[in-house]
């Protein structure tokens, strides 16, 4: 682990400084240090499946650290996997962002990879990634649930995107939220934070797929501390979902029983075209990656027997006009709820909330 940190620290200090508003990242050719928090259902990185031939995983001297050799046209580059937290691994790299994104998609976003991104919903980015001071934010919204009905097209916001870097980002965002016509499209896709410790300072961009881009700074330990802080908060959310919002059935001495409850996705607007909504949600495609068999129970309720295509675990949903009840089963992965929420906020309604049993907002 020490070797990895030294390598990254030396890379960081040798880097040419760029501003956050630099277009390099937008173009996908910046080479900033990036860290992904990846949710894993695999025992070790050696069990990674279906890797592209350009990647080779090998153990390091540290038993929880793995080196991934990435063969590119320019030779070999490296990516590090820190699996010291067995559930939430860290992937560190200083590859070009566009190339790294495509590698990560190949490794993580395949069906049955048993890995998933950490899905930072807009509300998580706003409330849980508030370490240090704010330096900006990005908004991105695209309503994928609007059918071909032109009336609907006029009624609802279709797309909205914006990047803001500068002072008082929280106040700017609060100002935007006052406009009800665009409120449903104000989905945070990333936030910029300045994080200081006794060891140094980093300017981080934290994005919706659990990715940290270290834009500027002088301390890799500070970067790792920032990542670790957010990882702990995200892990706590997933643990809460898996502990308190699963429905289990079990045999008893006298028969059987069910225990546990569901969580509720509450939307701020009604689904106009349930058929289209269900078909987009259960398309088996990115970003939702859900298989499901819908049963129309009534005109306003659809029961779905679903499978999470990341882990292939079963779970159930009940979709009403403005809500989704999510029934995780005994083995279901809580990350599926975070993925569902993050993508509903980006592709349907930014005001979507995840609610628990005491009217508490989980996300």
């Amino acid at each position: 682990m020490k070797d990895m940190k030294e390598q990254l620290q030396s890379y960081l200090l040798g880097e040419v400084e760029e501003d956050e508003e630099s277009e390099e990242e937008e173009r996908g050719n910046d080479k900033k240090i990036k860290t992904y928090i990846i949710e894993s259902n695999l025992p070790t990185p050696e069990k990674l499946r279906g890797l592209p031939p350009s990647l080779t995983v090998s153990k390091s001297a540290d038993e929880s650290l793995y080196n991934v050799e990435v063969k590119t046209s320019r030779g070999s580059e490296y990516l590090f996997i820190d699996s010291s937290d067995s559930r939430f691994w860290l992937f560190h790299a200083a590859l070009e962002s566009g190339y790294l994104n495509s590698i990560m998609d190949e490794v993580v976003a395949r069906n049955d990879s048993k890995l998933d991104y950490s899905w930072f919903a807009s509300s998580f980015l706003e409330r849980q990634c508030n370490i240090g001071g704010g330096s900006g934010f990005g908004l991105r919204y695209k309503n994928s649930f609007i059918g071909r009905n032109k009336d609907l097209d006029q009624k609802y916001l279709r797309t909205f995107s914006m990047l803001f870097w500068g002072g008082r980002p929280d106040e700017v965002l609060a100002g935007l939220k006052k406009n009800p016509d665009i409120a449903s499209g104000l989905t945070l896709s990333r936030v910029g934070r300045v994080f200081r410790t006794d060891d140094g300072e980093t300017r981080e961009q934290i994005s919706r797929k659990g990715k940290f881009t270290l834009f500027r700074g002088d301390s890799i330990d500070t970067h790792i501390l920032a990542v670790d802080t957010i990882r702990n908060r995200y892990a706590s959310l997933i643990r809460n979902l898996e502990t308190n919002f699963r429905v289990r059935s079990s045999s008893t001495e006298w028969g059987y029983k069910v225990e546990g409850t569901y969580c509720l996705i509450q939307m701020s607007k009604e689904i106009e075209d349930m058929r289209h909504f269900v078909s987009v949600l259960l398309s088996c495609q990115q970003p939702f990656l859900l298989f499901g068999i819908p049963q129309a129970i009534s005109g306003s309720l659809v029961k779905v027997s679903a499978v999470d295509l990341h882990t292939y675990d079963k779970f159930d949903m009940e979709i009403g006009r403005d809500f989704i009840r999510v029934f995780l089963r005994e083995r279901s992965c809580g990350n599926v709820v975070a993925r569902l929420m993050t993508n509903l906020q980006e592709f349907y309604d930014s005001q979507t909330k995840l609610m628990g049993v005491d009217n508490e907002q989980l996300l």
Partner: protein
Amino acid sequence: MSSFSNTSRLLNCLVAFATKTPDFPCPLYDKGFQLETIEPVILLPDGHAAKPDIQFRRNENQLLFFECKDGACERDQLERYKQLSIDDLKRGRVTSLPGSSLNLFDLSYFGTKGKEDKLMYSVVNMGNPFPLVILDEHEVFWHASSGQFKDPLLTAIFGKIEFERPVPLSFIPFCASDDDDTIIICLLQHFMSRFEYSFTLDELLNDLFPQVVNYYSVKGKDEMKGRIGRILKTIMMHDEFSSALSYDNNTQRYTFRTMAPVAYRRKCQKFIEDCSKKAKETLYIRLEDFDET
């Protein structure tokens, strides 16, 4: 295919009443009732068994049973429930409550608004003492013309429970009275969650409904296996799945060959549509609909 049975809806409604949820009332939970057993079996002195659908416990001394009934109830079942006594419950060891402290129990029928008259006729008009609770679209209420609960707290709870949202249906995705359609959906979901799945009927039953298998009688298991075996045959004979699901007579094992999710989803849709069409062509007459005389 909207074949979710009303019996399942009733059962799920009672589970929801005893469970704290984000958007549905939980009056049983609020008053200290805990779900103890689904489908308990209580042996009576004459050797017959009373089999209510669900059992709750409260404090150290009280049990509450419901029989979920979408239609009229059978006379012999009523007779068995009339016989049921505290002593039977203590002797049968059907609860985690200490036998010495158990001194109060209620048994109520729980029916749907659509079949309220049939249930009312078969329970109340025939002089049976049981309370009758009815599920309507947005409320549950105790039928004032039916029997009283022994515990006045229950009369207060079930006097009227109102809710805006539909009854949660996924606590218990399946119960014995569900149509084959519901089992088909459970099966198709299950196949998607497995890779190159090879199984015997026993293994499948254990994978799908382990909690049920553990306490079903041999006869009950055989009936369930027979039912699932017939459904698997229907799936195998359908064009969409004839090459995906196969059966080996020698090993008595089925094999389901995994396919891409999008293709599988398309096949499931086609299969379900065809099943729905067939169901519409068949007129099902349920015996309980004629059990009024």
